[in-house]
């Protein structure tokens, strides 16, 4: 728990492509931003779902990968020195009496902002939960979706489920600490890095890791403490004694706390107007995949446009007495100075 207090002009919820570009549009208007994202890096869906895959519909780029687009945007917004808060999620959003906002993140940080921009895409990326009855009872006590402290797994009988880098990396990292490690995967082929897979096979050959091909059938235990994992394998049911389980099935997007902030929603999307992309709460805007309006297309380029218009309206709220002249970056010396190109 950090418990830091941060005061800023704008808090942007989501550091995907649209949240990132919002920093640019707001930065041209001298507005300072803090961004929060549940992932451990910028890029949102582009970085998480298709970093290596080509995108063909970004204006000006016949072809660009998800990661390249993210990297370009980070470069583009660098002059504005936005601050990032990764691996966190905003839980509560409260409008204060003076019209500004107080946001609480899940690690205890408090943000105070004049304007909030929700650029949450499809929602926050959260671990996929295996469809095992009563698994919720064990979550946080003996079933975990991430490793915060390796020490918590010392001398435990550990079952790790998955075939990707997360599952293999943690198998290798925790094997020396744990009492036993059983790696479970639905097939004998792994998509993790070949070097990791080879090392795992070595540990299996040495009897240090047990590899089981199958799927989780059920859990045994009491009061949230696991005692065994029941596997469905080609040879029938196998009971694996276990005190800790780490399922790694990848991430999926969940709307989460956004649904509880009193914003008008339309089918899990935030309703906005098309002049400012303002939500039903004055001072809160929504841009990108998370919003909805007649004719909305879930395109990155739409989100970019929405960010530009939102920035104008946000500026009026933040600096109501300042006279803002519309300028072009190509011709304005003032803007070029802000971008550091003059």
């Amino acid at each position, binding site marked *: 728990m950090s418990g830091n207090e941060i005061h800023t002009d704008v808090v942007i919820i989501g550091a995907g492509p649209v949240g990132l570009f919002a920093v640019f549009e707001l930065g041209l208007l001298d507005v300072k931003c803090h961004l929060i994202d549940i992932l451990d890096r910028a890029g949102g*869906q582009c970085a998480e*779902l*298709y970093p290596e*895959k080509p995108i063909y519909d970004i204006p000006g780029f016949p072809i660009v990968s998800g990661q390249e687009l993210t990297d370009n945007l980070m470069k583009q917004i660098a002059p504005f020195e936005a601050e990032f808060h990764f691996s966190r999620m905003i839980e509560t959003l409260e409008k204060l009496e003076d019209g500004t906002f107080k946001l609480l993140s899940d690690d205890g940080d408090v943000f105070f902002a004049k304007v909030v921009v929700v650029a949450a895409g*499809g*929602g926050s990326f959260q671990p*996929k*939960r*295996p*469809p095992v009855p009563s698994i919720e009872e064990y979550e946080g006590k003996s079933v975990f979706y991430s490793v915060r402290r390796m020490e918590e797994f010392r001398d435990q009988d550990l079952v790790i489920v*998955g*075939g*990707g880098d997360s599952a293999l990396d943690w198998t290798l990292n925790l094997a020396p600490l744990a009492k036993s490690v059983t790696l479970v*995967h*639905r*097939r004998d*082929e792994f*998509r993790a890095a070949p070097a990791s897979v080879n090392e795992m096979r070595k540990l299996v050959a040495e009897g240090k890791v047990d590899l089981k091909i199958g*799927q989780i059938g059920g859990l045994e235990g009491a009061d949230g403490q696991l005692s065994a994992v029941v596997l469905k394998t080609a040879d029938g049911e196998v009971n694996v004694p276990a005190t800790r389980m780490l*399922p790694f*099935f*990848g991430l*999926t*997007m*969940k*709307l989460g706390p956004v*649904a509880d902030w009193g914003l008008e*929603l*339309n*089918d*899990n999307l935030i309703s906005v107007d098309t002049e400012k992309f303002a939500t039903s709460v004055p001072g809160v805007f929504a841009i990108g995949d998370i919003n909805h309006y007649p004719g909305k297309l*879930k395109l990155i380029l739409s989100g970019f446009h929405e960010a530009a218009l939102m920035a104008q309206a946000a500026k009026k709220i933040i600096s109501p007495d300042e006279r803002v002249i519309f300028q072009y970056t190509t011709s304005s010396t003032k803007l070029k100075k802000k971008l550091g190109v003059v």
Partner: protein
Amino acid sequence: MRVLVTDHDGNEHELEALEGWRVMEVIRDWGLDIKAECGGACACATCHVFVNENWVERLEGATAEEEDMLDTVPDVQLNSRLSCQILMSDDLDGLQVTLAPSSRSEEVAA
């Protein structure tokens, strides 16, 4: 051509499809509840369907990429496929699939 889709409530829908369309697109465009987070990029596994046993062998096999994504599907079965990887053709007229629980969108009270 038609695709027969059983939805999350067990109701069967006969959906009209065009040649070359991804089965995920057909299901989504007809308004059935399918998450399909990544829009067909084989990157999210939330377009997961169970293929009727009569049709499993008639589909082109899954690529390594699709198998990798199926690894991340918690409710995977032997007849699991990602519907964004199945392209409609005359051979698949009448294809029968059932939406898997993991392809369901979240329900959030408005």
